[in-house]
């Protein structure tokens, strides 16, 4: 009788343990629906519009080309700024995202320095004015008139040609960039990156 009781106690204890283990979440993942993390560097061909792979390819190609340009190599850590990259395509493309990636890749090399661009200039001047407003210790305030002017500026444009024939849609993108000497106005370097994307829109 005692044996039967101890056996049943053991079975109950075992099933409770199994049940508890089964309920416990084994991974630090709170999941609901069909959401999943993917590879941010993967080739994306969901649609033929401008996508992450195009942005990454353009930025990679342009930063590699710029870092190998003799003009940037001639000076030790030249100071560069990014001007406007105009979007002449028929779709919305955040060109600042392209230039930001190019700038990040070039800065990472340690071979080039970047001055604040026009979009960040307001923040820069605001900070300098705030530091020189009399609220801060004079010895620790950054002085006015000490900003460095960039040796070169990067500017360019992105264009596209879209063609349709029956069910086929062909998009050709071209990003052109130039590196201009700010003092002389000479275009010291220029390069282009082209991308062709073709999709078949057939429903069957």
């Amino acid at each position, binding site marked *: 009788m005692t044996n039967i009781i101890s056996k049943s106690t053991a079975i109950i204890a075992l099933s409770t343990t199994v049940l508890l283990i089964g309920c416990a979440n084994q991974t630090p993942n709170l999941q609901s629906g069909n959401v999943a993390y993917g*590879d941010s*560097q*993967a*080739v994306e061909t969901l649609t033929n519009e401008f996508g992450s*792979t195009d942005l*990454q*390819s353009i930025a*990679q190609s342009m930063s*590699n080309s710029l*870092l*190998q340009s003799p003009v940037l*190599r001639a000076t030790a850590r030249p100071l560069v700024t990014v001007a406007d990259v105009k979007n002449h395509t028929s779709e919305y493309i955040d060109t600042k995202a392209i230039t930001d990636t190019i700038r990040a*890749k070039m800065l*990472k*090399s*340690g*071979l080039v320095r970047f001055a604040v661009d026009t979009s960040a200039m307001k923040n820069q001047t605001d900070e300098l004015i705030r530091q020189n407003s009399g609220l801060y210790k004079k010895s620790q305030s950054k002085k006015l008139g000490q900003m460095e002017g960039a040796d070169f500026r990067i500017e360019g444009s992105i264009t596209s040609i879209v063609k349709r024939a029956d069910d086929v849609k062909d998009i050709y993108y071209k990003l052109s960039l130039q590196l201009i000497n700010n003092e002389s106005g000479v275009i010291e370097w220029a390069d282009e990156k082209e991308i062709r994307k073709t999709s078949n829109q057939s429903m069957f």
Partner: protein
Amino acid sequence: MKETNTKRKRHHFVIFTPLLFALNACATIPTAQNPNSIPAKVEQLGEMSYLRVSNIAAQTRKQLLFVQAEISNSDSDNQQLFYRFKWLDAHGFVIGNDDPWQPLLVYAGQKQTINGLAPTPQATDFRILVSSPDNTGNP
């Protein structure tokens, strides 16, 4: 008779022991691979059926490692390749790891060249990661 059996056992022992040692040696000694050979520099996602890296050249150009690889297509159809570069420092640590996968169309029976530039002067070694949709793997 008993003596003959013992002799036979000894004889078997003499034959099998060196064989076992030889097999064991084969299992434990890794196959020596030239660290500068193409297989040592290429990481495939699955075995590529038609594409192969046929040549690699690397050179340090003003502090940054520049790599050029030649991709050959042995098929009579065009093949799509996906590739990316992985950069390593002198101690074998991965640098950056933010090179994107890039698509490349390799025409039938043709050779194409791909280039990579190290993100920092600290990168002294590299791997080329390759994948083709005809592979078992896909990025």
